[in-house]
């Protein structure tokens, strides 16, 4: 502490003693007792042997085209611009097939399919870690509902997010950081913070958004005219004021929790800037994530931050990256989107692997739905893009106990619909929980008169995905 800064008056000894030193006068419900009891975020044992401990979920908002990324459909190239009679999707009127503007090739030893836009992901060191799942089906054709469904298990929004359920089930390894961290672009995805809300679970499990610009957590820092020492002194004065009140209201257990929260907030103020300060990373790591390039920098930075957070004990990290909604100008759109995430993702997987963290970190790459093999005209012209497709999509998984170098499930030859190993979103959720050592049927919370669970009414594990 700055020696010139006036510190609080009469207390010596550690802060904790100061805060809780009057415990003796508080009777048996002393604050120290409450402190000793489990905090809602204390680490909890999994229900069964877990393959993964942490999750990093890369969410491609807008819905990437599966046929333009990891699930090639040569048939579409043949049918390009010929009339489509498919009826699914929202597009009306004359529809025509759209061939992917990209070539595809087999990569790695396992021979996964990737469109030629993927350069870094195609590196066998990365590609052979992946499990490409093609059997998932969504239910909604509209972005916010589909986003809610993928993120919370319910189309309606307002239910707890996957990350909240995981926090509820496993707690957090680091009490000075939030257990569930969300990173977005400057613009929030459709549906906003309800994509990472705690829903009916206690508020401790809500996702905390690390903002890409300005204050990483809203109001994390004091106003600029208040120094750190100023803040510390204020907290000490507050503690003194609260102390008197606590002594007069010994029956009231919430008081201690709220006091402890101010101290936690203070510790977070110290810890968060350190975690997000990626300048301390060596150059070669920064380059690995693509921080040396304007196109890849934003997402790469977030991927690097995700690794640092997981390293520090954050349980669930989610990154939203938008712009995948290519109804038109598919080639330009997807080229630029793929380029923006390719290096960061690949760097993340490599870095986790090299640090021995990939084994127990589950990395997920997905959108809220896939895209249609056809499109309608826009403004009267053949617009080369795709509509929303709830019947087919593509997802990638890496680490955390998934089957390496595998393709699970299949879509039909046009990519219109999943046809093999077909599962609804809830089954993917159950599988994620399973890998984390949690049983969806047991991970319940009594609310509104029934035991609620992530899958709503129960689901299945997809054994084919598990290594």
């Amino acid at each position, binding site marked *: 502490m700055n020696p010139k800064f006036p510190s*609080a*008056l*009469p207390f010596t000894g550690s802060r904790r003693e100061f805060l809780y030193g009057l415990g003796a006068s508080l*009777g*048996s*419900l002393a604050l120290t007792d409450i402190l000793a009891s489990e905090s809602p975020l204390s680490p909890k044992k999994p229900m069964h042997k877990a393959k993964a401990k942490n999750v990093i979920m890369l969410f491609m908002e807008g819905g990437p085209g599966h046929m333009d990324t990891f699930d090639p459909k040569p048939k579409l190239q043949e049918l390009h611009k010929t009339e489509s009679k498919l009826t699914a999707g929202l597009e009306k009127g004359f529809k025509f097939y759209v061939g992917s503007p990209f070539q595809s090739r087999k990569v790695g030893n396992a021979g996964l399919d990737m469109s030629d836009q993927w350069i870094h992901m195609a590196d066998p060191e990365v590609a052979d870690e992946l499990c490409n799942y093609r059997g998932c089906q969504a239910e909604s*054709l*509209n972005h*916010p509902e589909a986003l809610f469904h993928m993120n919370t298990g319910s189309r*309606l929004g*307002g239910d707890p997010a996957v990350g909240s359920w995981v926090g509820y089930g496993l707690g957090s390894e680091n009490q000075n950081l939030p257990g569930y961290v969300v990173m977005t672009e*400057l*613009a*929030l995805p*459709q549906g*906003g913070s*309800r994509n990472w*809300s705690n829903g009916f679970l*206690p*508020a401790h499990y809500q996702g905390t958004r690390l*903002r890409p610009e300005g204050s990483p*957590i*809203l109001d994390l820092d004091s106003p600029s*005219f208040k*120094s750190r020492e100023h803040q510390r002194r*204020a907290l000490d*004065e507050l503690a003194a*004021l*609260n102390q008197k*009140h*606590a002594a007069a*209201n*010994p029956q*009231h257990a*919430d008081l201690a929790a*709220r006091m402890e*929260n*101010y101290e*936690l*907030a203070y510790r977070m103020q110290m810890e968060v800037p350190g975690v997000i300060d990626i300048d301390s990373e060596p150059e070669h790591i920064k380059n690995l994530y693509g921080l040396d390039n304007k196109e890849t920098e934003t997402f790469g930075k977030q991927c690097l931050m995700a690794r640092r957070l997981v390293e520090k004990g954050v349980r669930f990290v989610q990154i939203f990256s*938008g*712009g995948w909604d290519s*109804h*038109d100008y598919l080639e*330009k*759109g997807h*080229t*630029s989107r793929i380029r923006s995430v390719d290096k960061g993702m690949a760097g993340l997987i490599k870095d986790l692997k090299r640090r021995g963290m990939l084994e127990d970190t589950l990395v997920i790459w997905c959108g809220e739905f896939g895209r249609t093999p056809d499109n309608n005209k*826009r*403004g*009267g012209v053949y*617009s080369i893009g795709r509509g929303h497709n709830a019947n087919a999509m593509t997802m990638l998984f890496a680490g955390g106990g998934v089957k390496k170098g595998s393709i699970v499930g299949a879509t039909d030859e046009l990519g219109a619909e999943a046809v093999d190993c077909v599962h609804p979103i809830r089954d993917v959720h159950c599988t994620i929980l399973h890998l984390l050592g949690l049983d969806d049927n*047991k991970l*319940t919370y009594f609310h*509104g*008169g*029934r*035991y609620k*669970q992530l899958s709503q009414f*129960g689901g299945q594990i997809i054994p084919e995905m598990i290594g």
Partner: protein
Amino acid sequence: MRSFLYALLPALAVCSAFAAEPTDAERLFTLKVQPLLAEKCFGCHGDDPEKIKGDYDMLTREKLLAGGEYFGSDVVVPGDAKKSAIMDTIRWEDPDYEMPPKENDRLTGEQIEHFAEWINAGAPWPSDDVQLAIREEEAKKEVTEDGMIVKTSGGLGDEWTFRRYQPEKIWAFLPLTKPSLPGDSTGSADSTNPVDSFIQAKLDEAGFEPAPEADPRTLIRRATLDLIGLTPTPKEISDFESAWKNDSEAAWTSLIDRLLDSPRYGERWAQHWFDVARYADTGGMSNDYERSNMWRYRDYVIRAFNEDMPYDRFVIEQLAGDELADNSLRSRMEGDHAKFVKARAEGKYTPEEAEKMIATGFLRVGPWDPAMVEKAEARQLYLDDVVNSVGQTFLSTTMRCVKCHDHKFDPIPTRDYYRMYATFAGTQIAERTVPYTSEENLEGMEESKAIAQRLYDYATKEANALRNKRETAAKKWFKEHGLEYKDNDARKDLPDEEKPPRHVGLSIDEQGQLKVREQDEWIWERRLERYEPLAQAVYNGPDPKYLNARKLRMPKDPNIKDRPENFILTGGALSAQGEKVQPGVLSALGLPVEGAGKDDPYVIPEDLNGRRLSFAKWVANPENPLTARSIVNRIWQYHFGQPIAGNPNNFGVSGKQPTHPELLDWLAAEFMEKGWTFKKMHRLIMTSQAYRQAAHHPKREYLAAEDPDNALLAYFPTRRLTAEEIRDSLLAITGELQPSNGGLPVMPEINMEVALQPRMIQFSLAPAYQPDPTPERRNRRTIYAYRVRGMADPFLELFNQPNPNDSCEARDSAAVSPQAFSLLNSDVITDRSIAFAASLKEQASEPAAQIEQAFLRALGRKPDEIERKRLLSYYSDMEKYHADVQPESTEYPKEITRSLVEEFSGETFEYQEILPAFENYKSDLKPADVDAGTRALADICLLLFNSNEFAYVY
């Protein structure tokens, strides 16, 4: 039991199936074990031969005994439950085989015992005929040890229709009779508040003493926050304390009267209603369109509370006010249909009629947007939402479960869900022309309109420039190709060769910009509707041809001869039409619809007009056992912080049962007898000793062990202030709170990073949030703040303001660390502390006196000697600190550059957005505007705002 509780029996053929009288074990199997097998086991072990799990089929005795992949013939050992492996699995004693695997399906202890008993009896499995005979015999009995049969319109199967309920579990559906008061324990029966008789009886039973009475300062803070949602002023406190010394009873009752007479009362209690009804000013979903003039419904509710509108009327107006208003208008037009239609279109309603029309805002208040959804599905989304919301709000009944199947626990068949659905099937939502009434506040319209007009003009100007650029290029193209120019719309369907490329002449950036500007044109055009006399209301008629939440208007003369067809939708799917249904009500309550036919008294006549009114009257009927119980339970909850029946939105079997059922019934009956008035109920509850007791108890350790949830109310429950109470009280304490009489929503200052952060909507970014330019408008109570579904005020959200998409039956108040950030560091709180300090400086000249006033105004007490000394020293240290630090002055942007990833290109483009609100912005007092002493005092103010003493109410 009343006569509606009888077993509805098909004429039974005389059974010859009884070769011999069935044994008890056979009866046990048929009535207890078999239904369990069917409900909990066959799903994975029998129903679908293709999908038998673990190779274990339980469909017949033989298969059941044979076992499967994991267990052999030891799975069930007839005559010996102990040796039967199945018992371990259903007891969840074997961690590898916990059956049924879902928490929700887990068997109860009693059910497990039935299994054991049956196995011990040799696991008999009578033939289907014998089972049928046993069931039919059983169905003849009205009440058995398994409970009673509730007559309903009938489930999808007999098993459901004739299932039994324990009366105490379905307490809420049974008729309400006013219980007599419990025997008086003190011998002074006459003076005891009936509330206390019931509370005391339970305490006596448990052997608890009630807590002593709270001190007057605690009481006035408790009552003031409770009734008006603000902390009491120092003068109110000292006046009350002196009056209390004179005559505590009189002081207390006159305090309650004063608070109930305050217009702030309605502002507070309407908030409770909106938590349940889900008030917001926008429609949510991807477009999140503004619902112009939704505030008229908000103010209607506030007025209803202030005027103590009887609750039955409040119910009817919100559900069918449009029918009442139009009936009244029709009769004023003396049956001349053409005249009526014209008057309706022109909104020639009297103020009384207008008020009723506005009340139907309730039916518009949920999130809904038909964008990107088929029309039929969009209507289904609306109707499901209304049915569910009406069930939760007025009847404390969860309807969502009954959409797909007969209720798992409650006596509500899916048929009744679709009857209720049919009741609303002709209800169409629209902005209707309804004249403003003299009670509605129209101030600020001109200023607000001017800003909206500027934003609209700006969007149009920018869009026009881009459109002109495009058309200039298009003209050039047509000329070059020797073709005649056609404008953008006209050339749309031409073959590609005969027209220029789409977006000709526009760069990729400009294409994106045009899309944003065109979206902004819609948004501001819609915003301008605010200034027209429209109300968010409903009408009766067929589904309109198109649904677009941007504009929903009523046709001039909708065809009310239309009879929408409604069906039971199996599994909730539109495509799975089952049996046809008529409009109707919940049959399990045994309360017929007024004027209904005898053959089915729970069906509402099919006329489109009158359906909802019939339904509304049925809800508000004093014989309806749910309605009054539902609302008195909520009133109690808001007074005590905990309800009598633990799930105020769910009185069903799965909801928490009431802690004091007789009290609840007594209050409900009393509420109706006294004319359904809230204010009488408040007086009754608040004058009880239970309400006036202290929040601490001499035997708290004992109670913490015996009654950890304080269910018996041996002491008064403590609660944290709600988000609105915090913000409103802060403004009141600092002297910044501006009185309001409702009207246009106000835009408080919110975290500027959030205000200006981009927010995705359907096709582009939502416009930035701009606070009102003057403190007079923006520093009003939170209930008047513009509520955007897609963007919460981060301060309020942190303090658990509920998300308006879901009905909130009880507020959460978990302490999380971001609350500390917000209450210590945010601009909003810094501004409050500076304003408070500046006001204290005016009030007193010396720091000691200023600190004393700060305590009085924020906490309602003087600091003690230790606090005074400590804070004086803090003050002087901070004054020195601040003397060396000059805060930066606050700049508000008048324009911002936004960027968006364009779907066309996947590339980022930028555009400018103007922020006219900041052009003549009158900011609140900022740290840079005041001297070091004021900032030091503000540090102390900030402490008080963060203190637990401020945050909790005892």
